[in-house]
């Protein structure tokens, strides 16, 4: 067997194993969500179910009967979690994109005093973990009436995302050839209008990538949300998942169904924008 051929086979086998290792945990989660609890709890274990159904999802979403009397189902204010998570993620992403892109434009196109210092402090802000912020934010928000509101969480998540957005977008804006911008300036545009008309339309893919990152950061964020949000008025999906996995230890099926619902946006987004995502990831990591 030639070496090239052997290498080809061995890399195929390696990637196959890797793929299996990454897929099996997720498949286990999905399969649990589709099987009756009786089957989940029996021994010897049932590997291939004859009773796949979507009852747990229907119960969670508030439709249909509840044949097994899930500890879950209507007890879980899933609608509220979904609404809060969506509102928080969408608005904080929008805010982070606008604010972060403006900052990125300043970094990529202007030379000013303290530029490196400001950039570094942005990165330092990113080094502070959410859990460290959550303690004082809880008090600050309580005093300002922002505790347990989506507005408070929107501001917090936007602030978490601004540094990374600025970092990514500075990379994307920096890639635009300067000649394009110069041409616009010669045509009599001010720098600002040149940015709006020439540069901004060209960084669409960058905006998409940063937007996805920001959305998922907010959608997945737990440390701050778990402290700042107290009731269904602002509790997001991850906090809800945490609450219910603590309370109903026996209903694995319901909890798995809830997790599967939570990972749907991640999966959809990765599939839609994988190309930009990949570019953003490598750009962000390599160009810093």
């Amino acid at each position, binding site marked *: 067997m030639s070496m090239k051929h052997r290498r080809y086979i061995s890399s195929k086998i390696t990637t196959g194993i890797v793929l299996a290792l990454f897929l099996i945990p997720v498949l286990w*989660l999905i399969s649990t969500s589709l099987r009756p609890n009786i089957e989940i709890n*029996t021994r010897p274990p049932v590997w291939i179910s004859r009773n796949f159904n979507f009852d747990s999802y229907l119960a969670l979403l508030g439709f249909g009967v509840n044949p097994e009397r899930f500890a879950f189902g209507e007890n879980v204010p899933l609608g509220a979690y979904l609404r809060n998570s969506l509102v928080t993620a969408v608005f904080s992403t929008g805010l982070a994109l606008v604010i972060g892109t*403006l900052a990125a434009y300043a970094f990529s196109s202007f030379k*000013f005093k303290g530029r490196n210092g400001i950039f*570094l402090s942005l990165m330092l802000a990113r080094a*502070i973990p959410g859990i460290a912020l959550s303690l*004082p934010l809880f008090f600050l928000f309580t005093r300002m009436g922002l505790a347990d509101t989506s507005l408070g969480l929107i501001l917090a998540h936007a602030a978490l995302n601004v540094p990374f957005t600025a970092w990514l977008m500075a990379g994307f804006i920096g890639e635009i050839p300067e000649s394009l911008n110069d041409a616009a300036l010669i045509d009599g545009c001010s720098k600002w209008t040149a940015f709006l008309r020439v540069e901004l339309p060209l960084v669409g893919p960058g905006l998409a990538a940063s937007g996805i990152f920001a959305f*998922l950061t907010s959608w997945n964020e737990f440390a701050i949300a778990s402290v700042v949000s107290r009731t269904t008025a602002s509790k997001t999906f991850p906090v809800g998942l945490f609450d219910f996995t603590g309370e109903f230890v026996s209903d694995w099926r319901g909890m798995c169904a809830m997790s599967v619902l939570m990972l749907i946006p991640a999966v959809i987004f990765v599939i839609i924008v994988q190309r930009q995502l990949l570019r953003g990831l490598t750009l962000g990591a390599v160009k810093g």
Partner: protein
Amino acid sequence: MGSKEKQKKEKQKHSSVMLEERRLPVFLLLPAAALIIFVIAFPMIYSLYLSFTNFTLVSQSAPKFVGFRNYMLLFQDSVFLPALGRTVLYIMITVNIELVLGLFIANAMSHVVRGQGILRTILMMPMMFAPILVGFQFKWIFNDQVGLVNNILFEIFQKPVIIPWLIQKPLGFITILVAEVWMSTPFMVIIFLAGILSISPDIIDAAEVDGTTEWQKFIHVIVPSVAPFIYIALAVRSLDVARAYDLVSIMTGGGPAHRTELIWTYVYRLAFTSQNFAIGSAMSYITVLIAIAFTFYFFRQLIKMRKGSGV
């Protein structure tokens, strides 16, 4: 239009451009600065202040200044230093395992021509999952009664095997490590794959002509060529792992009996469960300062390296 007038107009335009050049960046940065000061800087200053007081969640009276007492207490605390040590160990083990796995997987994937895109897409998924969800997923996989792992052991030994993965002493820590590695190795793979694919084919061809083995090629050609990528990935991941909280929080909550306690689960426990907010703040401050020092060091090295290699 006279030429003089034209010149004047030119000049005016020029000075307005200069003005824009100076003022615009300030306006551009203002919103970002305002938001970060409000949500990050101000709370951090507030928690610095609290760390010097005797404030607790239940205290009714105003916080009293106690100097460095909380910081002193920390070093007498029997959980703090072990938790700090465990966090460092956790960072070192996960990041190194991820590095080795990441290099091997990326190298293998770089040879796969058909379906590389799909592979990459699937690998990107765990990176996008919430840590809280990954934690739950592995909590269920390692469930002592009917989890996936113990079910497989049942099939192998043909009798119930009840290993309390999340509770027994070294096992709890190991299961958390497994979850972290599962979640984050893809990041390394994606970065290294980009690195490997950017190596000039000439270099690889030259190595192949010399009759090197696969292993030699991997160690002497591939790994050195992606060194800048390795450095960046290690730094980014170390900082990320240093913040570990969600995953541990849902899997074991740092328990039982502090066996899996990392620094941030302990901060939470002190501040909210024991309601000792002041000591929690002191502890989180020390940890944040360490992380900031590391970030600072990392960016300086990165700038140095960039100047050196032109990456």
